[in-house]
């Protein structure tokens, strides 16, 4: 995708209705979510420029948001976003061992994508607020809790 589709532009306009007329900037985060979702999980400078133009904002207002928030990727990533929480509650329940297990299984390190472009293993994922189901991971926004190695095998194996 090099330019915003009509569908995306319409969705952004719908988002803008939630805010006062002169406060379109409030829609930047929502717009970037929409664009990233359509563009295989990452943002490009061209697309960010288009968002800026559509919302009548300086491009910097879009870049600074895209680089501040951890859910936005500004480099190409694998199709499936896998984020294993390693924060304290998950750590106490063995998350670090699971990270090593997944790294070995996929033969990549945190922050890398598999060579076939299938899986992106998110770097240093922080607490995702599912601490009572620790250890947990998020795969394409879906929460998987009470993980074991067997469960991980099944979840990753089911990805296309």
């Amino acid at each position, binding site marked *: 995708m090099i330019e915003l589709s009509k569908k995306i532009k319409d969705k952004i306009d719908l988002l803008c209705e*939630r805010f*006062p007329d002169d*406060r*379109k*900037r*409030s*829609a*930047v*985060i*929502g717009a*970037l*979510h929409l664009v990233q979702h359509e563009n295989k999980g990452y943002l490009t400078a061209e697309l960010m420029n288009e968002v800026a133009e559509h919302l009548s904002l300086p491009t910097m*207002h879009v870049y*600074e*948001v895209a680089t*501040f*928030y*951890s*859910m*936005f990727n500004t480099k190409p990533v694998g199709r499936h976003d896998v984020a294993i929480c*390693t*924060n*304290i*509650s998950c*750590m*106490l*329940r063995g998350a670090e061992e699971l990270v090593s297990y997944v790294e070995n299984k996929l033969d990549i390190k945190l922050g890398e994508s598999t060579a076939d472009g299938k899986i992106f293993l998110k770097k*240093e994922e*922080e*607490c*995702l*607020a*599912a*601490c*009572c*189901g*620790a250890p947990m991971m*998020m795969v394409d*926004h*879906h*929460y998987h809790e009470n993980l074991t190695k067997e469960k991980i095998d099944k979840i990753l194996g089911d990805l296309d």
Partner: protein
Amino acid sequence: MKDIKKNLVCFNTFDAKESWTYKTYREYGGYEAWEKIIRGELSPEEIIEEVKASGLRGRGGAGFPTGLKWSFMPRTVEGQKYLVCNSDESEPGTCHDREVLRNNPHTLVEGMAIAAYAMGATVAYNYIRGEFIEEPVPRFEAAVKEAYKHGLLGKNIRESNIDFDLHTFVGAGAYICGEETALLESLEGKQGKPRFKPPFPANYGLYGKPTTINNTQSLASVPSIIRNGAEWFKNIGVENAGGTAQFSVSGHVEKPGNYELPMGTSFKDLLEICGGVLGGRKLKAVIPGGSSVPVMPAANIMDCTMDYDSLQKAGSSFGTGAVIVMDESTCMVNVLRRISRFYMAESCGQCTPCREGTGWLYRMLTRIVAGQGEMEDITKLVEVANKIEGHTICALGDAAAWPVQSFLKHFHHEFEYMVKNKGESIVSVKNEVAA
């Protein structure tokens, strides 16, 4: 163990099959309070007095009295005013707002409507963390839609002259946006960097307009207070802490989970409800209110009740009610290192003591764990923490400092042992002996 009542307020619909629907919520008395207000039977002043009398305190971590906070809004001044709900739940260990959003969203919708009316706000945003996009966000939005459909939200609601519009805002991953002024910046479409205070949001908030930000659980508690009365709510809890708390109990317990229990429930009872320490092992330490609050050795928390005053008196804080339990096999140096990495990663970077200091803390702890620590590193950790605490715009700096100070106060010997033994943990030796 005495009979402890569960799920009295925010989780009150949880025993229903589809606890999140409008139909279920009505069966539990939902929207009765809001309808009473729409009928003109309760004034904003009366609502604020009721919430003040209920003893409800902010559940986001600071514990500020909710009714008092509401009274700071210049309610009668002309112009747009806003209410914002903070559902950016990301304090490590905390996961109960997610339960409210998924399983009882209508109580939050009703609570927001009541709060907005009491403060003269006609528009509200619920700021929900981005990672909640798949389940909590749609559940909440569906509840909002149902409420509109039944004529409970919108313009001139049931010809009452009350306007109230409620929107969802989805974040994009930044712990700092849980800080209320960073959250406002984020709502305005900017980087989540906390603002200097004063001016406080009640005077200069979203888009420069008077704004009040309340936590999910605080707002979700409001309908029960109005429906059942301040006395009812107050009497559930203890002195200085009305109502219930949602405890997210995680770590080394047999049955981790979210438990809504009366404020002032004893720690012993809470631990028993959670099935005790994992594997019957010995309790070592507890972080009672999310990773930012000081850690407590087992002996210090054993006789505490879980409320603001008791935990503060024992040297920690109620925080968010996220109880992280650690058994005897836990290496405290490793845990502190992990906590420190979190604050380094999440520092927004605008205050030098926090931006630089959190990195120092993490790197020194990493050095100690790698077996390259010096004794002077241990002293330096506390020095750096002390230099961050109180020297930053927002409380993230303090939150980074308190774990370091408390871990070193209570578990100094573990750090010394690791430095002296080139990275070997005191527990690995004990664990070997035990095995």
